[in-house]
């Protein structure tokens, strides 16, 4: 695959996003209001487990919301155009890479607002950020494919959630465990296993998404 086409596709994604600033702003408002609601209802969180699970629940919903639209703009005409000019691997790669960047930024933003409003409990910041980074990349791999599936099946928003929640669960369990270790400030040697699994899951998810998208793409 040519690098040029891939960068072209990526550029297109960014252009589309920045041309419609309202969607990005919408996501930011979504994050802030969700975090604010949880801050208001919890007042103060003392238990690290509660802090952790609330954070990941918020992140899960934001991730699903953000990535559900990644294939929604692909109309039938555009699909035909893309089919003629690009190969499916480049196309899904560009989507995944774009989603990765977006998700990494959004996860940091969520973490920032969450620690601001609710208070931070993380003791090992490095490990927590690593967990956040690798989970957001794996999340975007899964969610890009799920978004493609949902867009083929009548673009149903609730379908996106139904399809992706159970599939994301193994990923989420590893992330929760890893970030819990980071919150407790455990030694890195305890978390190596989980980090390894998370990185491995990244590869598995992206490889599977790339292979399987081939078959979704044909109409």
């Amino acid at each position, binding site marked *: 695959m040519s690098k040029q086409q891939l960068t072209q596709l990526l550029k297109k994604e960014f252009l589309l996003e920045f041309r419609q600033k309202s969607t990005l702003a919408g996501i930011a408002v979504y994050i802030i209001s969700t975090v604010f609601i949880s801050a208001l209802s919890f007042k103060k969180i003392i238990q690290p487990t509660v802090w952790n699970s609330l954070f990941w629940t918020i992140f899960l919903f934001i991730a699903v919301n953000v990535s559900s639209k990644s294939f929604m703009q692909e109309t039938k005409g555009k699909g035909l155009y893309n089919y003629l000019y690009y190969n499916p691997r480049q196309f899904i790669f560009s989507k995944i890479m774009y989603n990765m960047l977006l998700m990494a930024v959004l996860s940091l933003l969520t973490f920032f607002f969450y620690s601001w409003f609710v208070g931070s409990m993380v003791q090992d910041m490095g490990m927590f950020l690593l967990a956040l980074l690798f989970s957001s990349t794996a999340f975007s791999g*899964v969610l890009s*494919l799920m978004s493609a*599936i949902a867009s*083929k*099946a*009548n673009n*149903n928003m609730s*379908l996106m959630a*139904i*399809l992706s*929640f*159970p*599939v994301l*669960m*193994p*990923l989420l*369990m*590893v992330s929760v*465990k890893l970030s819990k270790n980071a919150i407790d400030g455990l030694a890195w040697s305890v978390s190596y*296993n*989980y980090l390894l*699994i998370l990185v491995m*899951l990244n590869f*598995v998810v992206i490889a*599977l*998404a790339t292979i*399987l998208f081939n*078959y*979704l793409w*044909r*109409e």
Partner: protein
Amino acid sequence: MIKWWKILSAFIILYTLVWGMLNPVPHLDILNETIRNVYFHVPIWFAMIFQMGLSVVYAIQQLSKNNLQLDLKSNQAAQVGLFFSFPGLLTGSMWAKFTWGTWWTFQDPKLNGVAIAILIYLAYFILRSSIDDELKRARISSVYNIFAFVMMFVFIMILPRLTDSLHPGNGGNPAFGKYDLDSNMRMVFYPAVIGWVLLSLWILDIKTRLAQLTQKYDEA
């Protein structure tokens, strides 16, 4: 035509039902007689995993050959697999009540894995029902089937080995196969596995034929 393996499966399951209740078992602490659950609970899970695996194999074939009959079989196998998850859950839950003292616990990755598996296959059926075009439905649901099976496999097979689990065979708990399964129990356990897998194949056979007939009837 009567197929021999169908009769065999009925006889094997009858044998495990009777002899599984009567044969002598090692009386271990806590477990006691509940160890007999290994003749029912474990083979039912094997049958479930077998059917779900079969469904994925059909899904992969469907993607390469684009044959609607394969999609029909994949769908039916997923249904049989889901069906088997319920008796598996029930027997496991009853066993847990008498050994762990609770019907269900969220601490155990295997239990969570099964809950996820059920959710995944329910999502699969919802996905199927939301697409009208047959060829499109076959392709898209196959893609989801394969992806979901891999993630479920990670959840059931890899994660339990990492975390502590209450389940026998994980997290330092003795596996039935390693320490407790004596030759008496093997006489029941291995046939039971074969019997339940054959039974699941029998159900799949009937369901597939029924679905094919319904399809023909609808077309006519």
